């Protein structure tokens, strides 16, 4: 009797645990879906043509017929268990590549992503090269010792700080 009671209470506990687990996972999956929806909405352009912004940010809200339709489409894809990559590929196939809010990092489009950093790196190398070259030329031409240079820089710094005119 006692054993059956214990088994029943154990079963109840397991059932409760399952219920809690289900509710928690449902809540989290809802939140995750909401976050995924937002994240994917930012990776797609609104197709209305009038706002020139992402699906998530379209200012026309409910007036934007095409945007609302696309959001429904996106929600259905998420519900059907498609992963992000497949969803984006499906939209690109249906609406064309320009529906993606950033160019895919493949082929010529890779240039879009790399060029700014390439330019920054190149500029940085040129700047460092120029400074080193000039400073090398300066140090060979100059007879100042390191201590003198330090002293000079300090004097300059203090003059800069404490003189009335900058």
């Amino acid at each position: 009797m006692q054993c059956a009671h214990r088994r029943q209470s154990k079963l109840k506990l397991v059932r409760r645990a399952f219920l809690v687990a289900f509710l928690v996972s449902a809540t989290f999956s809802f939140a995750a879906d909401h976050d995924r929806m937002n994240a994917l909405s930012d990776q797609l352009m609104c197709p209305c043509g009038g706002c020139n912004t992402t699906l998530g940010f379209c200012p026309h809200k409910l007036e934007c017929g095409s945007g609302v339709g696309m959001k429904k489409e996106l929600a259905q894809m998420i519900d059907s268990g498609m992963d992000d990559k497949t969803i984006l590929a499906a939209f690109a196939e249906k609406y064309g590549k320009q529906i993606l809010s950033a160019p895919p990092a493949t082929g010529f489009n890779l240039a879009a992503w790399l060029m700014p950093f390439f330019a920054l790196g190149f500029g940085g190398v040129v700047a460092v090269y120029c400074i080193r070259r000039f400073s090398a030329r300066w140090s060979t031409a100059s007879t100042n010792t390191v201590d003198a240079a330090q002293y000079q820089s300090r004097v300059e710094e203090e003059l800069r700080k404490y003189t009335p005119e900058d």
Partner: protein
Amino acid sequence: MAQFGQFSLALAFVVTIYSIVASLLGIRFKNDKLIASGRNAAIGTFVCITMAILCLFYLLMSSDFSIQYVAEHSNRDLPLYFKLSALWGGQEGSLLLWGWLLTIYSAIVVIQNRRKHTAMMPYVTSVLMFTSLFFTTMHLFVVNPFTQLVTVQPDGSRIAFVPADGQGLNPLLQYILMIIHPPIMYLGLVGFAVPFAFAMAAMMSRQLGDTWIRTTRRWTMIAWFFLGTAILLGGKWAYVELGWGGFWGWDPVENASLMPWLIGTAFLHSVMVQEKKGMLKVWNMVLIILTYIMCIFGTFLTRSGVVSSVHAFAQSSIGGYFLAFIMIVLSGSLYLLTERLPDLKSENQMESIVSRESSFMFNNLILLASCFAIFWGTMFPVISEAVTGDKVTVGPPFFNRVNVPIAVFLLFLTGVGPLLAWRKASTNSLKRNFLWPAGIALAAGGILYFLGVNHFYSWISVVMSIFVTICIGREFYKGARARATGSGENFVEAVVNLTLRNTRRYGGYIVHFGFVLLFIGWAGQAFTSDSQNEAGIGDTFSMKQYVLRVDKLGVEDTPNYKSQKATVSLFEYGKKVAILYPERRVYKASQQPTTEVSIRSTLREDIYLVFSGSNPDGSKAIFQVYYNPLVMWVWIGGIILGLGTLIALLPNKKIPAKDSRAVRTQEAKQVEVGS
């Protein structure tokens, strides 16, 4: 009145050409009377364009719909103040405003310098009037604001047509900040024509010292101030009027204004190196040429239809003219630069990679890289289509991913750069200046991480912001303490006098602090959230710690628009903190719907409520609610940035000799103690 406007434009065209020719002939024949005549003609151009713009204003005010521009950009029921903004609400009017502001600047420059820089000024007049000639040509022959409205008959003949009412002003422009935003934007864009003209004049007249830089320093700062203010006002407009919950969307029009501002910022820093050390002369020329080109390019971008934009002007044929003008200016200025290269040699050389000069170089590099990234992203759809035939979109995710790391590094330099010594910073001075700020910032970063700020870029932005703020604060503290001890002033007085005694330096620090606050505001954008809710009267919905209750739904009918309006009470932790009034309007003339958002702003966050419409059966309203942390910091940062610029524009205050001696004695003691 339209004929008078047309006549004014024609007269301006002739007078502008005369001004250029007279100035150049005056230089050629060393004839002062011709030079003075060219100068007076530049003032004459201003008078003519002013008459033209007044005519257009009168036509708008009197609702003269026989004029195409008036019929397309206003209507009878448009409030008077929006009729003023209709003056620049369309292509023709806004270009006329561009041209008019340029003539104002030109007139001020020639009057201000009529007895100064005699070798340079005739060239300055010519360059300014050359730009003015381009715009006057556009007004007169390409985008004439005084064109009569006509209908084409079946037999091909054209007859004048006067509609009963106009099409109205674009509803998105019917916002109070839009009355001041375009003129401020153009004051910025046009303003860079002045330092550009002086740079060109310096090269033409071989006056390649730093006279042109010293003469145009304030002009550059004024242009930079206006452009920055306009960018922020544009952001405020987008935030309040577009209803998408953000203030910056990397739209091509926004990018078009940001690019010259970034290079202008680089120029403002770089000229200091030329002033102090006689270095970077070629670089400064390149920067001002690029800044000016980017101002024209921005105008081209928004008007040519090359890239699509949410708030660009309609596609038109003027893009080609702008492109041609850009090519002429670019090739002319680069030719001049290469010709004068031997005369632009540096007077000094860089001594160390850790010095103020090199930090300015890196600051320039970062600003230019950021500008290039924006330019590249904005133009990439066009480039990609030309190369591969594929249309791609480059939207906000691209710009955020590319620019945020660059901007964080720029923030770092904002703190470090001004504290490095000229020529070479010693290890000791680096330790002295940066050890404590870096330590405190990292400790604060650790605390923030444990408090849940774990979005990397937001975290690093806040850590950098703390670091820069401490660096700036220490500079004020050290200077004010030295002053207070020497002069007997209290600390606040000492801070004020210190700032006023060296406005450029301390105004610059205030600008940097404004920049820090802007960054804090941006960092908050990583934590936004939003939700869409259907609600009837009495229904509630929540967002984070807030609950919103719909109290009233109503309609309003004005001569200009019809609107659906909601009254929504906002509760925070159960306590009513605000009443919000979001609206959804439909403008009668254009039948265009707009959202009028209602915002509750605090230092911590904004609750941003949009009335999106009604559900399909019309029983409930649909609200989009956004939780936007720290947005107010962006506006406060912008105000401080502007304030700092205004302080930097002030002349240095001279302190009385007696006080000056006392302060210097104390400062000398400080130095001894410090050593």
